[in-house]
């Protein structure tokens, strides 16, 4: 219909499958996110460290290239589990954390503040679909700077080191992907939950930062006051460190066993889902 023909008319074309409707949310959210120059700059910066790591791996197997530029007798550290753990630590905790702070709190709070939820939920989109769409928006962005470059580096190392190394280090590939996914799911759900509680992006960012920092400080205080190690249960970085130490099979100072840390992370995820389930409603009952 031409735009000048102003009539109310029916739509008789094809419809997309209901199971794919949640994908509309991340697609439109990414369009909004990448409009920010600050975010684009940060996102580009996130690939500096993976490129540096790739160059490191390449040089490790091509020391002659260093000799060509006059750097003889250079010893590069082995590309093993500690190398990948250090790489993923920077990508997940530092860069992934900043990305979560930039994107996460703005995902749900504007919809709650501007009454957007009834518009979504009156359509063929469930609350689960809505949450999945929002979760995927953030999780996909963090994945692009964490386990995806990590896996590419792992495959690069395997290509240069040979088939035997690849077979004997498959567990490392699982650790890279699995460790990052545990972090991404936890931090993304936490970000969505704080966003749903805050109703304003800036407050959500402060709240999320507060949960992480306050949890760490409060945990330390509990440990000091009561002489226990239970305070580490509130310390998100310490929990992740314990899980990663087990996954990467490296000696790291850990505060608790990996199963306890994993169970605590699951509890944090469960709590976040509970908050989302309570807050993400098409209507608000005023008591």
């Amino acid at each position: 219909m031409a735009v000048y023909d102003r009539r109310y008319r029916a739509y008789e074309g094809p419809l997309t499958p209901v199971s794919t409707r949640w994908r509309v949310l991340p697609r439109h959210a990414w369009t909004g996110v990448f409009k920010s120059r600050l975010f684009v700059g940060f996102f580009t910066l996130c690939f500096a460290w993976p490129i540096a790591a790739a160059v490191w791996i390449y040089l490790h197997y091509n020391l002659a290239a260093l000799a060509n530029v006059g750097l003889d007798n250079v010893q590069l550290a082995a590309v093993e589990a500690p190398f990948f753990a250090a790489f993923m630590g920077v990508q997940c905790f530092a860069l992934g954390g900043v990305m979560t702070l930039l994107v996460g709190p703005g995902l749900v709070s504007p919809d709650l503040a501007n009454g957007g939820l009834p518009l979504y939920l009156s359509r063929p989109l469930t609350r689960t679909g809505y949450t999945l769409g929002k979760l995927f928006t953030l999780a996909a962005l963090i994945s692009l700077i964490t386990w995806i470059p990590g896996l590419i580096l792992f495959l690069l190392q395997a290509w240069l080191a040979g088939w035997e190394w690849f077979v004997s280090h498959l567990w490392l590939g699982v650790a890279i992907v699995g460790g990052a996914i545990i972090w991404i799911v936890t931090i993304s759900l936490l970000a969505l939950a704080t966003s749903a509680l805050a109703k304003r992006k800036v407050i959500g960012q402060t709240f999320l930062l507060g949960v992480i920092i306050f949890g760490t400080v409060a945990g330390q205080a509990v440990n000091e006051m009561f002489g226990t190690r239970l305070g580490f249960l509130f310390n998100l970085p310490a929990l992740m460190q314990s899980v990663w130490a087990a996954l990467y099979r490296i000696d790291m100072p850990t505060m608790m066993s990996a199963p306890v840390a994993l169970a605590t992370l699951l509890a944090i995820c469960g709590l976040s889902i509970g908050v989302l389930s309570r807050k993400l409603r098409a209507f608000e009952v005023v008591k």
Partner: protein
Amino acid sequence: MTSPGTIELDGLGVRFGGRPILQGLTASLTGRAIGLLGPNGAGKTTLLNTLLGFHRPAEGRALLHGDDVTQGDPRLRGKVGYMPESDAFIAGMTAVRFVRMMGEVSGLPPEAALERAHESLQYVGLGEARYRTLEGFSLGMKQLAKLAQAIVHAPRILFLDEPTNGLDPPARARMIRLVREIRDSGRAQIVLSSHLLRDVEECCDEVLVLKDGRIAFYGNLEEERRANRKFIHIEMKGDEHAFAAAAEGLGCTCALVGSGRVKLVLPEAVAVRDLYRIAAEGRYQIRRLDYKRDSLQDIFLKAMEEPRGRL
């Protein structure tokens, strides 16, 4: 034109925290446009939310064109358009992207959603403003954007919650015209909730009045209007007793209210011209003759006066 479907309420009841909000609503709503009326807190928005599947009924059920709303059937939700009462938009989006996204969530492929988003915004009169972000819209423009997102996927049932809220007279007239056009297209059944009787009177052919969570009245407005045309108020000069007697001779029911004023109820067989005839024969002067007006207001007030409403 296809005949509209039916919205069936079958003993519908909704409770919040044990407190009944809607009780025993039973009706078959068949009109092209159904007005939901009632004082604040009567349960209009709760009924709309229940029909949209936001609230789970505590008792009974509601069927939209044969589909139970409690089943959460995506096919049914795809047939529904909703314009909420309060502010409702997605922050940081232009109008066209907002409406396009809502179309896509309703199931339109991206290209079709974009095309229909442009059409819908043109249709509601936001064509020139469609590349502006929604935050910069005036209240009236936001109302029109909400209507555009509600109709982008061409729903079969359109729920409008207080569509003229906060609109100035020209914007209100525009909104009413759009709602009437959609109604007259026959492609969507409209449920319009409002506390403004005039909105309902201008747009709807059926009305459902709620009072304290119950149906106080449900009926066809046109039939009510036709019935009310038989209520006549006359101001006359001359012997009103004699005129009343002559009118009663025709079968009218008369009441004298003094100062030459007579109220009459005409039976089906008697026309207004018969009153002029007996006035001419008896040499009485009819100086003013009014049909009873504000039929919806009367319906509403009667429904509010009666303890259990009027069914």
